[in-house]
């Protein structure tokens, strides 16, 4: 084998991208959690007006949508790992992976609708 060819040429992903993406999205979610906690602590009013005021500005909508996207990507990798570990029937696994992707995309679209209706 040539020294340049370090990977077995099987055409598969090697998981590094997903591994890294899960950690990056985890940090994004952690930062967003702290942001909302900070906004709640500084906001003072714990009623509808105070809560809605946090998500009313456009930059906060975009940040929240970014966090939702990170959540969906994070959940995709985690749930994908669960199906790959426990579901060995190829057809069932493919169905669950597909359903997971569609469901997360549905949730992501729903989150857009929620945020921009405020």
């Amino acid at each position, binding site marked *: 084998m040539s020294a340049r060819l370090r990977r077995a040429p099987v055409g598969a992903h090697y998981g590094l991208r997903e591994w890294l993406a899960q950690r990056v999205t*985890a*940090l994004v979610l*952690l930062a967003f959690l702290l942001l909302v906690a900070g906004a709640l602590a500084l906001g003072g009013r714990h009623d*509808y007006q105070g809560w809605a005021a946090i998500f009313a500005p456009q930059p906060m909508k975009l940040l929240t949508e970014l966090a939702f996207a990170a959540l969906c990507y994070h959940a995709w990798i*985690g749930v994908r790992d*669960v199906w790959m570990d426990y579901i060995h029937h190829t057809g069932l696994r493919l169905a669950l992976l597909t359903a997971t992707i569609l469901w997360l995309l549905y949730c992501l679209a729903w989150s857009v609708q929620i945020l921009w209706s405020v």
Partner: protein
Amino acid sequence: MTQTPSPRPAARPQIRNIGIADLTQYRLPVPGVVSILHRASGLLIFLLLPLLLWLFDLSLSSDRSFDRLVAFCEGTPARLVLLALSWALIHHVIAGIRFLLLDLHLGVDKVAARRSAWIVFALSLPLTAIAALFVFGVLG
């Protein structure tokens, strides 16, 4: 360059995955408990995602829907689900921070890994208890 093949041993050790029936006898070390609960809590949050989005929708739509959200959260079944969700989020975040530190090669040796696993529970369980006080209306 060829090697003469060594004679095949009569019985190769069988490497098997742990069976479901063995789970009760299998003593998982504390880091293992943190790890499997990290997975279980993540899956729970994924399964409850529609509930979270529905609650988020109620909380933002109008002041009337906000009141409906408050009323919904005062039902006993809702309180139990919210408590489970609180635990899942708290455990997932704290255990997740531990995993991020392990990825940075911090506390990888056995003693440190066990200690940090205990710290996860020492933080997550009291925080869940505090969350329970909010969920059941004792605080807040």
